[in-house]
């Protein structure tokens, strides 16, 4: 294990990326902000995959590469592996991390939005919160996409925050991060 830095450094950077692009440049254009954040992630993933695949035999197929992402790659980044990998054998893979570090410190409070949206606060807050957290997920998505496409698997990666931090009050520590990616070997390339 090479050199290390405090986790807060990375956390702060991530936070700043998002706030810079979402509140700064593209406050009104979330989709543009998202693309930028994803792009940053992409570059990181691209370079990291280059590093972490040294000294290992070439992957014979896509599945191997994706397993690599789930195991070694992920533990390099988060000191833990992906918890669950699913696939429909038609090119869609679902990676699931039940304790995603980058969401571990986030709590979104619906009530905070109540003021802004008196009508039907719950749902309003829901999707607002989802959006906010989603912004933070473009970066990891970018990383995965960057890594895979550098391994010769062009793909689309999207994160699905099925249960938001704010949503599951019963479960304290659980933070789900399920990026779902679609490799273009399937004709129907739709992200789910």
């Amino acid at each position, binding site marked *: 294990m090479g050199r290390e830095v*405090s986790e807060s450094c990375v956390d702060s950077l991530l936070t700043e990326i998002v706030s*810079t692009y979402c509140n*700064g440049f593209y406050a009104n254009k979330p989709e543009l902000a998202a693309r930028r954040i994803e792009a940053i992630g992409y570059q990181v993933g691209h370079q990291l995959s280059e590093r972490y695949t040294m000294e290992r035999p070439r992957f014979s197929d896509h599945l191997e590469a994706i397993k690599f992402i789930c195991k070694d790659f992920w533990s390099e*980044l*988060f000191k833990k592996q992906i918890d669950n990998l699913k696939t429909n054998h038609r090119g869609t893979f679902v990676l699931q991390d039940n304790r995603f570090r980058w969401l571990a410190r986030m709590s979104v409070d619906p009530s905070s939005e109540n003021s802004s949206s008196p009508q039907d606060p719950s749902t309003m807050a829901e999707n607002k919160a989802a959006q906010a957290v989603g912004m933070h997920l473009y970066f990891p998505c970018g990383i995965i996409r960057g890594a895979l496409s550098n391994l010769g698997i062009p793909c689309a990666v999207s994160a699905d925050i099925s249960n938001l931090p704010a949503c599951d009050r019963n479960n304290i520590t659980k933070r789900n991060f399920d990026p779902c990616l679609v490799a273009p070997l399937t004709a129907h390339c739709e992200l789910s």
Partner: protein
Amino acid sequence: MAPVAPRSGDAIFASVERVNAELFTLTYGAIVRQLLTDLEEVEEVNKQLDQMGYNIGIRLIDEFLAKSNVSRCVDFKETAEVIAKVGFKMFLGVTASVTNWDADGMSCSLILEDNPLVDFVELPDTCQGLYYCNILSGVIRGALEMVSMKTEVTWVRDMLRGDDAFELQVKLLKQVSEEYPYKDDEYSEV
């Protein structure tokens, strides 16, 4: 209250959650590059980096205080030392050295030989004038501001520009003390 003894930088660094530095380095690199693409002007990028640093600093200081148990520094000298020895160590895992004090002890230099931010980095010719590590200055400025020290942080030396080390000059502009609810006369406390 009985002040808990301040902990050494290494001790804290050992205790805090750590991550692979490559991730940090590359992420930062990617940010800088993206900013360059978006803002085009190098100056803009410098500003932006500093701003981001500031935002980080104003939050990070509290973590620093909470985990390092440093009590209030008697003067700016001590502050600088703490930053160099504890602060840098605790977050970046490296220590800086403090030198070049001016006469009235209001400005000094933080020297950083080893800097995880710049591993692998080489500035292209198009990016001359870019302060690659400008985020650091922002962080320091922000952090000190939270402990009521207005400072000005500037780069003196930059390895990416061929210097032999990174040198940050920190100049203390003024020390604002808390405002009092019922009277607001300047009250310098040190």
